[in-house]
Every structure is written in C-alpha cells, then in structure tokens.
C-alpha cells in the first residue's frame, strides 16, 4: 500500500506547503509501513521533482501534460484519481490551499474517501482513525474519525515540521486519460504578482492596518519586509480602500496565514483579523494605543507611533543581516 501526495508547484518550484505535506505523509507512512508516492502535474523539471525525496517521498509520478500547467480543478482531480489508482494508494495527502481544497473535494467523491481538512497532527490510530483538525478559523480543534477505507487528509500549513532527509526520489512519467469535459472551465488569463513572496507560503509577514494612514506610507512596511525577507499583508479596510491589492488582505474573510513571525503594524486586532493570524508561531504588535486588542494576542509588543518605530526597526534589522 502507498500514500499518494498531491504536490503543487509555482512555475516549476515545488511549494513549501507541498513539501510539508510530503513530510507529513512520510511520517505517516513510517508508522503504517507504507510507501510515499508524490504526484506532480504539468511542466516541472525532473531534478526539482526529485527534491520531493528530501521530504521523504520514494517515488514521484509526473503527469507532464501541458494542459495541466494551469490549475483546472476538474482536470487535476481526474489526473490525480488515476495516479492514486496507479500508485495503489489508500490515503491521499495534500496541502490545504484554494486549489488543493477544490481538488480534494472532487476526489473525495471520486474515491469514496472520507476527508479531513485543516489537519494539524498525525492520525491517532488507536481504535479508529482519528485526525486532529483546526476549526472555527483557528479558535478550536476537533478530532474527526474517518470511517471509510480510503482517506484524504488536507494538511494545514506550518502544522508539521519540514523533514530533511537529503534523499532523492525516482521520477516516473505517467500518462493519464483526460476528457474534454475536464477542461470545461477555461482559464483565459492569469494575473500574478511576480517576484513577490507569496503570502500563504511566507515564513515572515509584515502587515499594515489603517494606522498606516494611506498607501503613500506603505514604503515603511515594504522596507521592513525587505530587510526581514518577509511578505507583506494588510487588514481588510486597507484592501477595501484600495490601498493594497485584495490578495494581501489577511483575516477571517481574507488569506489565513501561519508564518513563524507575524508583525502587525497599526492594526487594532479585531477578532476577524485575529482569526486569520492566530496560527502564527510568534506575533509582534506595533500600535500607538496600549489598549489595542492585538496586544492580548501578541508575544512581543511596542506601544508607539509606527511612523517613528518602523524606520528604526528596519535599520536595526539591517544591522544584523
């Protein structure tokens, strides 16, 4: 038996969250005495694919069909279902993401597999197959018992440590049959910020709120982010006002993040914003109001004016790099 991992890549580089999914699968495989097979779709170099081995995959199935370069949900689900069969798998592991969710949902029906999303730990297999998941946008956890023989686990980012074996996986080409109907949703263009660190993948995030007063001050956020090697984010009113693009909006109704470090500048810490950041390992809050609710959720805080503190902090970071 094997565990199949659906790996996503961004223009040919395997995503960190997908390597985490491979690490998760390899820990699970060790426990259950199984093999880890990863599957990648579309154009990606063989040596990049072999890297899945460092996270614990023994084999990578590569479905190179160029029509799969774009993330057409239905086509990806069809292709992965065929890889699942080919790999002789009974479990599918993937990283929770907007594409991953959509693909996993369809596969759950195709494979008649019970599905747990937002998984944060290995299953407890003592008298059943119980999986711990994050729910209520990070405000609680639940234990879900999967009762079907086939299982799908969508792993939450940063919930499991990335393994470094230094191994390399063998790469095998796989041909699949795709129907015209699989491409019924036609992607006509893609519009992606290039060169930016992607928010959901970032290890450090510097985020600004309405306290930054206007888009003309965002250079202060960007300078600090650059010094830290961080991605930038913002609160909802900031993206609503068009100061920043919508994909940077963090929170309950925006992107949910789980970096090692979240720096919140001029953000009050409304519960809807916190819901998107509460999985961060460390939170730094800079706010001039000592009563700002964000301080209750923070590990480190500075009470003061962001316009005064940010340049100093950026210099202090540069000094140690």
């Amino acid at each position, binding site marked *: 038996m094997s565990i199949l991992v659906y790996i996503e890549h961004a223009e040919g580089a395997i995503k960190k969250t997908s390597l985490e999914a491979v690490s998760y699968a390899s820990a699970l495989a060790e426990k259950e005495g199984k093999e880890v097979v990863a599957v990648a779709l579309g154009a990606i170099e063989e040596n990049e694919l072999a890297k899945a081995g460092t996270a614990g995959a023994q084999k990578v199935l590569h479905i190179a069909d160029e029509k799969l370069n774009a993330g057409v*949900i239905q086509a990806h689900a069809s292709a992965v279902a065929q890889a699942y069969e080919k790999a002789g798998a009974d479990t599918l592991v993937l990283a929770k993401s907007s594409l991953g969710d959509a693909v996993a*949902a369809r596969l*759950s029906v195709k494979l008649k597999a*019970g599905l747990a999303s937002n998984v944060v730990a290995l299953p407890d297999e003592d008298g059943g197959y119980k999986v*711990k998941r994050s729910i209520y946008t990070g*405000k609680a956890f639940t234990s879900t018992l999967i009762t079907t023989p086939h299982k799908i686990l969508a792993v939450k980012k940063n919930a499991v440590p990335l393994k470094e074996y230094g191994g390399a996986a063998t790469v095998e080409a796989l041909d699949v049959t795709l129907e015209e109907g699989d491409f019924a*949703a036609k992607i006509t263009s893609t519009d992606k910020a290039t060169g930016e660190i992607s928010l*959901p993948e970032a290890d450090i995030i510097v985020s600004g709120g309405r306290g930054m007063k206007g888009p003309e001050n965002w250079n202060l956020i960007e300078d600090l982010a650059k010094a830290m090697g961080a991605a930038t984010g913002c609160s909802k009113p900031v993206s609503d006002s068009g100061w920043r693009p919508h994909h940077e909006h963090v929170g309950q109704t925006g992107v949910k993040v789980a970096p090692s470090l979240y720096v919140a500048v001029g953000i009050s810490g409304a519960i809807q914003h916190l819901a998107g950041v509460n999985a961060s390992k460390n939170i730094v809050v800079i706010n001039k109001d000592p009563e700002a609710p964000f301080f*209750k959720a923070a590990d480190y805080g500075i009470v003061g004016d962001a316009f005064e503190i940010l340049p100093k902090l950026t210099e202090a970071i540069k000094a140690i790099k």
Partner: protein
Amino acid sequence: MKILVCITHVPDTTSKIQFTDNNTKFDKNGVQFIIGPYDDYALARAVELRDQTGGKLTVLNVGEAETEPTLRKALAIGADEAIRVNAFPSDSLFVANQIAHYAKEGGYDLILMGRESIDFNGGMVHGMVAETLGMPSVSPVMKLDLEGEVAKISREIEGGKEQLEVKLPFVAGCQEPIAEWKIPNMRGIMSARTKPLNVVEAVSDEAATETVGYELPPAKGAVKLIDKDNVQELVQLLQTDAKVL
C-alpha cells in the same frame, strides 16, 4: 434563470467558542447565528443576477429547525423561496450529498455558495456537489458576470487572480468582492414572512466521518512589551528567544 444558493448557519464571527458535555458539544449559549459570511457574498451576487435576468432564486440549508430564522433572513435579502433539508449537517460529504440530491431534479443554471463555512472551514462542499452532479466547479470566485450561457469569472489564486470562462451550469464557491453584502430592508423583512420555506426530508446516507470531540487551544502567555526607544531589544529577542531571524 434558476439559481440555487446554499447557505450555512454559523456562529457570528465575534463569538467566543466554547464546548460543553466534556468537550463533546458546541456551547450555543449566548451565541448569535448568522448566514456564513462567504455565503452572504454568494447570496448578494445571486440577488443581483436574478434581478438582471429574471427567473427564480432558491436558497437552501441543510439543518435542523433552529436554522429557519437564518433562511428567513436570506428570503428578506431577496431569495424567492427557501428549502431546509431537515438533518443535522454531520459532515461535508453528507451535506454535499443532500444538496446534490435536491439540485439534481431542479435544473439549476447556477449553484452558488461560500468558498468555505466559518465553523469547520472545510471549503469542500462546492467541489463535492459539482463532482456528484458532474458539473464544473470554480472557487474561490471574486467576480462573476453572465454573458448568455457563459459565465466570466475571476478566481483568486495565491498572489494574484485568474480569469475563466465556464458554460452554465456550474458550481461556484464565492468570496468578496463578488458583491456588496445586502442588508434586509423593511419591505424585504415583511415579504419574507409570506415567501415559501419548505422542509424536505434528508435522503439517508452514510457519513464518511464523525466528530468525536473538541479542544480549545492553550491560553496565550502575556505579551512582552518593549520600550519604543529600544527596538534593538526586540530584534535581539526575535533572534535569541523566538529564533525567527
């Protein structure tokens, strides 16, 4: 145009989450329930599309009798009729099966719902419904316009967006800024009282998962405050204490 919008009945976003009965039940005490915020976006856009094209807008929830006020609110916002599939929504596959079973005969041109619920955050139901009905699915949808039989969609992807075209019918998981939330006005509230809210029984179906218990995260320690004139101390703590730099 026949549009089906599926809504969840979830605790208000500011609710304090607690459990009772030895962490086996959600504590509803003092919790206000609302239409799922993402579903609210789907509903708002559906009302606009129905107003443009005519036809009928049906709103559906899989839930027990307690969800009826939430369905009435959806009627007040502009849905023409409401359906409650009478069952406890035990897991996403179960809910998706109920929706697909109901929608199968309905000839819907569009099935819209939120990208995810804000209780279990699965983000799975739209894809499951679409797969079961053999339809395309698109999520998360930020913009949806109709040009005859074709929908022009903008979907959020990591770090950007993607434009798509899909022929009707299909299923979409929606999010902002697809439309502005609609707040029910007095006329809407009055007319909601007389609009049909039908209860249909669930089709029996085995669930694939079971919820066995809940847990709250450990309490957060107190914040360590650093003097604003000593940002070096913060940098040092991030290096040595938190080890993130």
